[in-house]
């Protein structure tokens, strides 16, 4: 990983100077641990049949949380389906996230002030939206910045290219984060592309490209803060390649043994980001087993509360199928609605 920004080694040792204060690190750790807790519990809920297909983010907590924590409250987050960690870090209520993965309409109808686009699966299609949101911010003289995620696989889609080019032509305040997690379902990054560094694509758009150890929260946050600051100051877009690893199956429906050896994952588990940061903090005497235990208790309570909230969401009616097709429904929706109401 030469040419890759890193501050903390895989075993949790600091390399060089620490740019962050201990409190900041603790805030980051708490957010990552919270995300991990969400992921673990979501998988359990899924196994119980209380969530639908769920795309785990295990192993990608630093990339997502580090990126999201570089944002201010007015900044936009444009996720793929993988970014539940980033979304709950940027303010999405846990119950909303649960309801989305439960395929309940309340999982899409975000609070008005939440500056996050909903998760969605058509790969890379969200990236041009990010550019539009960002350019609108410039055109209005606002200083909101947009953080847009895409996967290594997603970089192959035409929309990824068009969005990068539009962003650079319009000098739009958007930071593209490619989470290179090694896989697009069963296809490894080496067969997704021939270039070994996704960050190199930036050259072709005349924008800065940075490759960062996406499992190193400190590096991720530093790189992102710089990119966000540049965007906010009118310096245009940045392409960040966060090198990470998808430790889990693609989704709860996937069986990775069909395409990768379990041993690969075991090895990668050693370098996973949550324990890496915990090791660092422990080494700094900034975190203890007690603190961890207390945090987990808090997270459990929070999650339980979110589940209760999600469970309380009223079941959608059949007529909700045609609601919101237009601001004012057409005659076709109105007549469908009558049928769905049983009229």
């Amino acid at each position, binding site marked *: 990983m030469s040419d890759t920004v890193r501050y903390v080694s895989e075993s949790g040792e600091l390399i060089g100077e620490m740019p962050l204060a201990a409190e900041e690190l603790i805030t980051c750790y708490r957010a990552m641990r919270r995300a991990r807790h969400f992921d673990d519990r979501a998988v359990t809920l899924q196994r119980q049949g209380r969530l639908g297909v769920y795309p785990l983010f295990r192993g990608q907590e630093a990339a997502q949380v580090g990126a999201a924590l570089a944002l201010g409250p007015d900044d936009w987050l444009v996720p793929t389906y993988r970014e539940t960690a980033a979304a709950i870090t940027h303010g999405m209520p846990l119950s909303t996230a649960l309801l989305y993965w439960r395929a309940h*309409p*309340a999982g*899409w*109808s*975000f609070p*008005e002030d939440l500056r996050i*686009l*909903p998760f*969605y699966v*058509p790969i890379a*299609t969200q*990236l*041009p*939206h*990010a*550019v*539009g*949101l*960002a*350019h*609108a*911010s410039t*055109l209005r003289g606002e200083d909101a910045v947009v953080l847009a995620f895409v996967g290594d696989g997603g970089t192959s889609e*035409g*929309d990824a290219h*068009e*969005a990068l*080019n*539009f962003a650079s*032509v319009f000098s739009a305040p958007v930071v593209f984060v490619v989470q290179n997690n090694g896989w697009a379902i069963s296809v490894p990054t080496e067969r997704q592309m021939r270039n070994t560094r996704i960050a190199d694509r930036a050259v072709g758009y005349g924008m800065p490209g940075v490759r960062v150890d996406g499992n190193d929260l400190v590096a991720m946050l530093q790189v992102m803060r710089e990119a966000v600051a540049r965007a906010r100051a009118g310096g245009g877009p940045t392409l960040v390649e966060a090198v990470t690893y998808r430790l889990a199956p693609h989704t709860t429906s996937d069986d990775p043994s069909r395409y990768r050896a379990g041993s690969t994952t075991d090895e990668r588990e050693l370098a996973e980001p949550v324990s890496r940061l915990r090791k660092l903090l422990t080494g700094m005497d900034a975190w203890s087993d007690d603190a961890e235990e207390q945090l987990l208790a808090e997270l459990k309570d929070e999650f339980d509360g979110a589940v209760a909230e999600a469970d309380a969401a009223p079941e959608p009616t059949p007529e909700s199928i045609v*609601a*919101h*097709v*237009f*601001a004012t429904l*057409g*005659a*076709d929706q109105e007549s469908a609605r009558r049928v769905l109401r049983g009229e």
Partner: protein
Amino acid sequence: MASDVETRDARTTAADDAPTTAHLTMVQAINQALDQALAADDRVLVFGEDVGVMGGVFRATDGLRDRHGQDRVYDTPLAESGIMGYGVGLALAGMRPVAEIQFAGFLYPALDQVLSHVGRYRHRTRGRFTVPLVVRAAYGGGVHTPEQHADSPEAILAHAPGVKVVIPSSPARAKGLLLAAIDDPDPVFFLEAIKLYRSSRESVPAEPYRFELGKARVAREGDALTLVCYGGMVEVCMRAAEVAARDGVSLEVVDVETLVPFDQETVLESVRKTGRAVVVHEAARTAGFGGEIAARIAEHAFFDLLAPVTRVTGWDAPYPPFTSVEHHYRPDAARVLAAVRESLLS
């Protein structure tokens, strides 16, 4: 390639002593509508390939950049999916984007954005996110454009739930419908028949005005049979109706104008009166929008029909790039009249 024919300046909304109407071509009326929308609402942005400095390959945006500035009217890179998705992002941010796609056949690279996003945001987010985006595109044949420049993909757009589809048939209608489309809280695809851009002029009120979307229009009254059509086919049907009138056959012409939401009642009212209908469009027949119209008429006016509903459309082939035969593809008054005769005989 862009075809590009000279046009006169459409700037008719200038000073105090401005006339109250002007005789405009459709492209001038569209230019005027865009001009007025830009002037009235800061959130309106006009963008696309060659719309800025050059004023558009059809000059629909001529002069707009000079008048409203390069932050309001600008060129994009050559990438339709990018244009569409970027427009979605602007709309999500609360702007009122008006994108131009040079030819409707170049909407195809943007169809993923249309089908996956443009029509779905409001629905899936239960109204939290909306896409008040207008997409203008030149469509249809009849003017010897190069290959792929004469496509009529309205049926594809109409099959995308959550998307409105409007196709004006004259300068005055175009202005009022475009201003309504820009005001609309939902995405509107606005297809402009290339054939009509400069083929004739019409008196167009100088002031901004709006026609309600979702309403069909009886363009000519008659009682023997209803011609249902839109866009570039309206003048064809009107001509057919004139010819028929000389033979004492009185045809009613219904101009659909808005394909989605479809104004079924106006069409049915007419067919219930005449008992006969011929549906006309220039897109290929199979799975064209004419099938939808015919199916609705045949279902809901079943007991009033005196003859089967028939269709006069492009053939089940691509619009031919072969200039010397393309007029055999696009319906003309003679083909419409042949269908009328057959219907009247049955």
